């Protein structure tokens, strides 16, 4: 089965991002295709490389990046939600005159159309939120 995953909440504050990660991992391990993971609302905050969680806790951002590296996952961050919440890549930094970027490896910023397209192309859309 081909899956689209939507993540609506940021890391640590809500368990939604944890659930989405474990679900995505389990689906990949079962051989399903994950067409795209789309980060929306505060979900975009999963994509900042500036996090430094305590040593004895999970690193939610790195976990997504590593899963994407292993499975060539498409991790898409909604541009409108990212602008409101300060998630920036090189393109956004230039467009909006920002002096730094914070996006983590394997994440890309793109439009909401990517969510709609993922829902059309996939057999199932699974939403994780608060």
């Amino acid at each position, binding site marked *: 089965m081909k899956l689209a995953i939507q993540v609506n909440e940021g890391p640590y504050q809500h368990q939604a991002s944890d*659930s989405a990660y474990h*679900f995505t991992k*389990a*689906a990949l391990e*079962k051989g399903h295709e994950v067409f795209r993971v789309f980060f929306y609302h505060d979900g975009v905050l999963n994509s900042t490389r500036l996090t430094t969680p305590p040593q004895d806790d999970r690193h939610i951002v790195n976990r997504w990046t590593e899963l994407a590296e292993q499975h060539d996952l498409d991790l898409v961050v909604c541009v409108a939600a990212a602008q409101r919440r300060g998630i920036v890549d090189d393109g956004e930094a230039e467009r909006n005159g920002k002096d730094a970027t914070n996006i983590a490896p394997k994440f890309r910023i793109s439009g909401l159309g990517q969510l709609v397209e993922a829902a059309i192309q996939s057999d199932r859309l699974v939403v994780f939120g608060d």
Partner: protein
Amino acid sequence: MADLYTVNKSPFEKNSLEAVIRFSTEGAAILMLEDGVYGATKGTVVESMITGAENKKFYALGSDLKARGIAEDRVIDGVELVDYAGFVDLVEANEKVQAWL
């Protein structure tokens, strides 16, 4: 095929479980996860929402029960425990997923 409904809210904090039971169709699969697993416990004032629901099948995510200290013998009879792989199977076995947040 019917739908899979996910509920991640404590039934004491939000009405998501009650809403899902009301708005789901016959043959629905209802998966409780995160704080939603509190709905799967015996002896609460909301237990009858599940025990009284007809033609619906209830599931709860085992790892979320364990994290919250809910032993299996406190889970309402008939609620089936699944892991994330079982969650994936439920998604595949049902027509679509409705998240009632």
